[in-house]
């Protein structure tokens, strides 16, 4: 689409250019294993959805390098304002597959208390992984407010806001980038251009020459990077983060990649994605590409991969079993957290819900007394 070529680090032969990729061997392996865990989580969720165990999932195949490369450039004291397709960012930073799985099941141990659809994660520990919202783009400008707070308190932290190509058409993109530019806020805007917004291809999303060029409209640097090259994404995000920590303001990064699956488990991409395009991108698989690099560095063997993948699968399986064994959220979770304190009218409505549930012998009602 764009005339400019995206930045890369991993060369066709697997060599890195520059050689110093800014990540230790340990970190490189952690990044790689995280990608395997994303795949394991992704594939498991697709299966769970097909078998009716969970209601919905969002395929992550194809975009793992973008997520993990970006996450690897951040510290635990930074904040993430992620999208629903960011399994890798959570896993990289130590959010457990089990915590995520409780969300997929919407059970009593889900940190969002079963209120949101699957993949709408929300975590505060070990990194601030901000509560995901369905409305596209709203979080982009919120991220700028969070970054302003860091700037105001003179902290050296940054915020990463992650969104899709479709997200660039949203209101939050426009106001977010505009405010960030004026405020020189320490925020990195990561546009994961996976070429599709559900069924809408990029050429119907915008007439601009890619997405990185949109940075100029907001007076900030725009960087186009190969999103299937974990190290290139890491490099671009690291540079942007360093600039932001030093007071240099925001950056827009476009990571060009491809969504190999459907938009979600409700979507049939064969209706609109040209087969040739899928075949083309299949060859650019981000995991295989990173393996080539690792192999050249002697950090990878096929056997090692199998072991790691088996471990990832075991972890995800255990997570899924744990979630499955967890009951539904308690009935009072319908009424709590609307406000810090339960107002009188919600106490009345809650009691009503308990009365009905009790009358009909539904387990959630316990003794029928509203507990809040």
């Amino acid at each position, binding site marked *: 689409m764009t005339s400019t070529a995206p930045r890369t680090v991993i060369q066709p032969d697997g060599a890195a250019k520059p050689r110093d990729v800014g990540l230790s061997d340990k970190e490189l392996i952690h990044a790689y294993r995280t990608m395997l865990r994303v795949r394991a989580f992704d594939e498991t969720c697709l299966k769970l959805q097909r078998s009716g165990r969970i209601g919905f999932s969002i395929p992550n195949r194809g975009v793992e390098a973008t997520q993990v490369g970006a996450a690897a450039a951040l510290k635990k004291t930074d904040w993430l304002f992620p999208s629903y397709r960011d399994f890798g960012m959570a896993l990289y930073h130590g959010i457990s597959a089990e915590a995520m799985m409780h969300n997929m099941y919407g059970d009593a141990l889900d940190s969002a208390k079963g209120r949101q659809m699957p993949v709408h994660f929300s975590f505060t520990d070990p990194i601030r992984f901000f509560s995901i919202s369905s409305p596209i783009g709203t979080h982009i400008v919120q991220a700028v407010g969070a970054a302003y707070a860091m700037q105001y308190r003179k902290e050296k932290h940054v915020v990463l806001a992650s969104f899709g190509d479709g997200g660039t058409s949203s209101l939050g993109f426009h106001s977010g980038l505009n405010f960030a530019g004026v405020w020189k806020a320490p925020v990195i805007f990561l546009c994961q251009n996976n070429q599709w917004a559900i*069924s809408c291809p990029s050429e119907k999303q915008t007439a601009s020459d890619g997405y990185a060029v949109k940075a100029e409209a907001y007076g900030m640097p725009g960087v186009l990077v190969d999103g299937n090259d974990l190290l290139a994404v890491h490099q671009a995000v690291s540079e942007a983060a360093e600039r932001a920590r030093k007071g240099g303001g925001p950056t827009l990064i476009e990571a060009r990649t491809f969504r190999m699956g459907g938009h979600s488990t409700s979507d049939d991409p064969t209706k609109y994605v040209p087969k040739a395009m899928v075949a083309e991108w299949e060859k650019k698989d981000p995991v295989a590409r990173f393996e080539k690099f690792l192999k050249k560095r002697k950090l990878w063997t096929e056997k090692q991969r199998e072991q790691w993948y088996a471990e990832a699968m075991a972890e995800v399986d255990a997570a899924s079993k744990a979630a499955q064994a967890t009951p539904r959220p308690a009935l009072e979770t319908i009424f709590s957290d609307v406000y810090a304190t339960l107002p009188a009218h919600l106490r009345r409505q809650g009691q009503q819900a308990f009365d009905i549930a009790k009358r009909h012998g539904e387990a959630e009602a316990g003794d029928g007394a509203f507990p809040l």
Partner: protein
Amino acid sequence: MATLTLIQAVNDALRTAMKNDPNVLVFGEDVGPKGGVFLATEGLTKEFGEKRCFDTPLSEDGIVGAAIGMAVNGLKPVAEIQFQDFIFPAFDQIVSEAAKLRYRSGGQYTCPMVIRTPYGGGIRGGLYHSQSGEAYFCHTPGLKVVVPSTPHDAKGLLLASIQDPDPVLFLEPKALYRSVKGEVPEGNYTVDLSTLRTVREGKDVTVICYGAMVPVCERAAARAAERGIECHIVDLRTLYPLDEDGVLEAAKRTGRVVVVHEAPRFCGYGGEISALIAENIIEYIEAPIARVTGFDTPFPNTLEHHYMPDERRVLDAIEHVAAY
């Protein structure tokens, strides 16, 4: 007459309108080759070309704003908002612009357009794929708000909306998309936008409802009948401007009223119905005017079956007012 689901009736209405009037355009997110996430627009790009049924960028503000400009300049846009929950970025365009254009321009500029959008719960969609926002729009003079509950009405009301000279918000109960079927006439016909539909006659309790709550109320009424309570059910169909006389008439019949909707109660649409009755015909009323609604919380996910009004809650209310 064919037997169609509600979503098929919507599709049929769009196809009929596009056939009859070359100025009718359909657009929104994923309505083109994909045919819409619920398949409301399936086949339309193929049949009418991509100048007439097409995908837009991901901006509801853009979809509605552009639709206004098209309508002002002679086209008949029928815009889709993928879920009603995602209409809020377009709220300014709807409330400040579409609704007020005829008025503020002294009638010089008008925008006959339709915004279709699926609303309501029942698909485990959580906070953002389940909401019922009708009250936001029914407080906005200049708009019309329409909600079908049967395939027949879905087609006839949508065709009437497309032919209407004013902007219409057409809310489709997604819970009924495939769960109700009914006979739908072929070709063009309209259902009047200013009269409610009597679903069932009865002398004991009047039940006022619309959209996805209509079958819920019907089931509750069937159970009430077993207990000797005869319900009079009306389906409002056009929520705004409302057939006020029809509502008051129905309420007078029994003097006992239950109003039902999925949206949160506080400042919800049901409040207006109660208020109308309490203001105009209180002398006929023999019991509290009951409301059965969603709770005053965001829409939950796993526990949505406890959140949404169901036939048990409607029946409770019917018995309560009947016994009063």
